């Protein structure tokens, strides 16, 4: 990774994670984008490239992503792109765009409203239309198959899963954007009924509406406008086959590869913000990234505390950058995921 120009995060902002936002997506994106730009210490007109991540299926309208651009500013014209993916991949595109060297700042944002639709009906539509969509197989069902496979091989216990939920919710007490937080007793959590066996409610992420924005800059620009830039030392993403039946769901080779290429193992990791939407996935990700017990996992509470689809991965970048810029950490890993049961994974190493 040493051969590519270094890029830094110089600004970030998030909306709260709401169960049901009253505002429209462009309306709640509006202050988030303004805040991120203001914190970056640059002017809106200085931004050389803009990339957004959102999903029209969530919004229930074709070209809904075009409306979101109103929160960026409709005039004068800008250089802009969109990914039908989490905002973390918008950040990746912005990172690639900055490699060209002709622009020195980029804005990446992600937003989504899961509340108007029914996730269990929408997500099967992203699956193979012949064998999987007609089954109506939804994210919770696939995650339950994945958790079952782990339990059957003694790779995790239900107690460990509940402990991950309790730790995440306790950590989220310090996160003003979190939707689920508080002190929970592991045994009490385990006494709750299954939602989809072997998953209980605490193993699932909340259904959330929200947005996140991150501002990137080239090294020269970052040093000019920002006292403490957060450097992206490595970033990589990998994808696995679509058909979940052809994967060993207890592993995540795409995460392992992305982590290796991002350079996770090349130094001590202080903390990691992982997009583990289900408790058991945290353990898979830790294993694949080689994160030991000394690494603080999801100090924000992670996706189990706030899960705005299409922004939750980019939030990991914002939270990882916060750990460095505001909490004195030196080296933090950010992870985002896409597809079903950790099908596609993006890993980045951020440093002070």
């Amino acid at each position, binding site marked *: 990774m040493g051969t590519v120009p270094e890029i830094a995060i110089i600004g970030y902002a998030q909306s709260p994670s709401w169960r*049901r*936002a*009253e*505002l*429209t997506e*462009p*309306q709640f994106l*509006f*202050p988030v984008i*303004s805040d991120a730009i203001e914190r970056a210490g640059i002017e*809106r007109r200085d931004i050389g490239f803009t990339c957004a991540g959102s999903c029209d*299926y969530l919004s*229930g*309208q074709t070209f*809904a992503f075009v*409306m979101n*651009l*109103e*929160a*960026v*500013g*409709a*005039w004068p014209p800008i250089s802009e792109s969109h990914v039908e993916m989490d905002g973390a991949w918008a950040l990746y595109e912005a990172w690639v765009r900055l490699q060209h060297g002709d622009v020195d700042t980029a804005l990446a944002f992600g937003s989504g*409203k899961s*509340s*108007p*639709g*029914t996730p269990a*009906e*929408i997500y099967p*539509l992203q699956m193979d*239309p*012949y064998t999987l*969509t*007609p089954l109506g197989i939804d994210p919770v069902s696939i995650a339950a198959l994945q958790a079952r496979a782990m339990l059957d091989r003694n790779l995790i216990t239900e107690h460990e899963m509940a402990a991950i939920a309790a730790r995440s919710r306790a950590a989220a007490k310090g996160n003003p954007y979190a939707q689920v937080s508080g002190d929970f007793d592991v045994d009490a959590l385990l006494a709750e009924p299954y939602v989809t066996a072997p998953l209980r409610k605490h193993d699932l992420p909340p259904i959330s509406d929200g947005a996140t924005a991150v501002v990137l800059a080239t090294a020269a620009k970052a040093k000019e406008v920002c006292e403490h830039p957060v450097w992206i030392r490595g970033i990589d993403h990998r994808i696995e086959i679509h058909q979940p039946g052809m994967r060993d769901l207890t592993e995540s080779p795409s995460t392992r590869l992305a982590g290796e290429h991002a350079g996770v193992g090349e130094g001590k990791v202080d903390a990691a913000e992982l997009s583990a939407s289900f408790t058991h996935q945290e353990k898979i990700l830790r294993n694949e990234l080689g994160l030991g017990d000394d690494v603080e996992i999801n100090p924000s509470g992670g996706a189990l505390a706030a899960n705005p689809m299409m922004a939750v991965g980019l939030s990991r970048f914002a939270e990882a950058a916060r750990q460095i810029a505001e909490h004195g950490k030196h080296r933090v890993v950010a992870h985002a995921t896409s597809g079903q049961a950790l099908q596609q994974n993006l890993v980045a190493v951020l440093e002070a």
Partner: protein
Amino acid sequence: MTKGTEPVEGMDYFMQLEYHELLCPVVRRYAEALRAGKLIGHRCPKCGLVYAPPRGYCPIDVIETTDADEVQLADRGVVTNYTVVTPVQYYGQEETEPFAKVSIQLDDPGGALSLQDVLEVPVDQVRVGMRVEAVWAPPKERDTGEIGNRSFGSAAGAIRGWRPTGEPDLPADQIMQAAF
């Protein structure tokens, strides 16, 4: 049969997704005004552009707008653009005859509504520059259930359509800047 030459078979898969989105406060207020027989918008305090329905921000100046920026709009205006739709009888199509949808630039203080229906005019006589006025549904029949957060410039359920006022047309060059 040689491999690869078998007939391709289709398979039907019908799906339906339902969405229930809360109306955001500014659109809720717009819908309430429509039921009361009024069109309202927000005027950007910086550039003066009028947005109907209000959006809660001006995307040009990137500033938020509030109830303080609310203005009552005229229910008369001029057709700035139109399209004639010739229905294809695809699944779910209810229209059978060609119909026009028009954009209307409202008289002062301004604002524009899009995809409006024209009444009392044959489709082939709809034209740019035509002066029109709103035909409101009677108060008891007004139903703004179709107004959503993304119903750009819609007055559906409250205004049935727009009919010619009989005034002379405005020359097209006077409304070029308002074409939408």
